[in-house]
């Protein structure tokens, strides 16, 4: 099975990954092969089976509502590619000419 290039484009859009046309072709094939392979699962009868969402076998904990010092803002911003006025700077959200 080969995925349609439309579907690959849709998925890469959701994942916010820029793909060029040759990438789309290649990935349509590769993902198609993997999806062919995983199709074996459709043969398994799981009608009476609950899903296992979690890795843990034991109960997990909550925490008390007690504060811990926050990071120094300089440390919070230290790895940021662009900073202004103590905040993370990003370029314009709407592209040039894009309507609101």
């Amino acid at each position, binding site marked *: 099975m080969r*995925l349609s290039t439309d*579907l*690959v484009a*849709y*998925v*890469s859009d*959701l*994942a*916010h*990954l*820029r*793909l060029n046309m040759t990438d789309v072709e290649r*990935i349509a094939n*590769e*993902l198609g*092969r*993997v999806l062919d*392979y*995983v*199709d*074996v*699962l*459709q043969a*398994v009868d*799981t009608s009476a*089976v*609950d*899903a*296992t*969402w*979690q*890795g*843990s*076998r*034991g*109960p*997990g*904990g*909550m*925490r008390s509502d007690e504060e811990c010092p926050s*990071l120094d803002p300089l*440390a*919070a911003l*230290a*790895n*940021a*590619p*662009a900073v202004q006025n103590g905040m*993370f700077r*990003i*370029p*314009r*959200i*709407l*592209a*040039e000419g*894009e309507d609101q």
Partner: protein
Amino acid sequence: MMGVPDYSAKGLADAVRSGQVSAESAMIGYLERIRATEPEVHALLAQDQDLALSRAQAVDRMPLDQRSQLALAGVPLVVKDNIVTEDFPTTAGSRMLEGFRSPYTATAVERAAAQGAIVLAKSNLDEFGMGSSTEHSAFGPTKNPWDLTRVPGGSSGGSAAAVAVGMAPLALGSDTGGSIRQPAAFCGIVGLKPTYGRVSRYGLIAYASSLDQIGPLARTVEDVGLLLQVISGQDVRDATSVENPVPDYLAQLKRPLEGLRVGMPKEYFGQGIDPKVRSVVEKMLDRLAAEGVTVVEIEMPHTRYAIATYYLIAPAEASSNLSRYDGIRYGFRAPATDLDSLYRNTRAQGMGEEVQRRILLGTHVLSAGYYDQYYVKAQKVRTLIRRDFDEAFQTVDLVVTPSAPDLPFVLGSRSDDPMQMYLSDICTVTANLAGLPALSVPAGFDDGLPIGMQWIGPAWSEDLLLRAGYMVEQMVERPRWPLWRT
């Protein structure tokens, strides 16, 4: 082999605690070893020799009553580079995080350091843990120390290779589908994936959250137990870590296992397993049987669905976990004049091909219209795989399989075919899907290449796994060090 630090972690810690050996002199030996081997093996991504030395000196200067409390006094530790550390950059093997400095340190590393371990380097890995050969590192592949033309396994290939050549006696790795056990097998050392929830994941850069677990790698079973002891236990910063007492893993280690019943699932010894691997593991089982271990053949019928299940669940969780790499708060940012291009270019340029492939696969299987067919289905089959184990442990104490279906393969030989690469996890993914502990221990050699066997136990049976591993270790004749450069 000159200048090889010939300590076990246990032996070194004992000697440093009592003052017989200075941590500094030991550290100097390991640093020399790194200088001699690293250029060819390329196991490491970051190291800090000055820091390591000054930490070692600090251990030596400690008052005796303090130092004698430290389980890992002065023991060098290599940390897989998807585990965050304040003292070293953390890249996860990705361009995306090149130069990233974490403002906090992972719990497992903190716990080891609190016991006197000294992190001297961060080790190479497949980008974000996604791979089985360490070829998918953005910073070049690691070589197998037993044969430099071959892969060390992955994704903890850097940790395994570093320990195998003696850069450090201990390493931390992470295991999502076999990433500790398979490279341990390929590099002729011991590696353990603990029960899910045994070791805190806080500070482990998430690949697939419900499968990931940090674990130890070392040259001996005892050292694996020693490091496991120190990093285990509930952590308030990880809600999936479990409040369950941590036993003394070394107390019973050397006691013979009388009447042990071992299950040999036929699904792991058939098609897809290299006959050389099979024969080494079977020979070891014969020898164990001669020692009084009962080996019975069992069935685990859902094993054949494991790879399919894994390659739906892991990419799905990964696609979500890796969305945070968006070029806004940290890491790589591609030049862009608007937000949308910033996102798309940053992620396309910052992440490697295999990572993108898994993100796209994972995004697809979670997307509207496919979720039930793929993701929910896989999580249900996962339940069946768990049940196979639960049933097996009704009749046997432990399950034995090969650690990997084949011998270390030649670099570059599998990179064109993702599906082929995925199949190399066939022996290991089930323990992750079932959340169970599993140990890989060397079982023998074939033509100079190491072969590992895997022991899988019920939840929280790490102590039993270590005892079984210790028993095997005593029977294996192996070269003390990789022979490529004596």
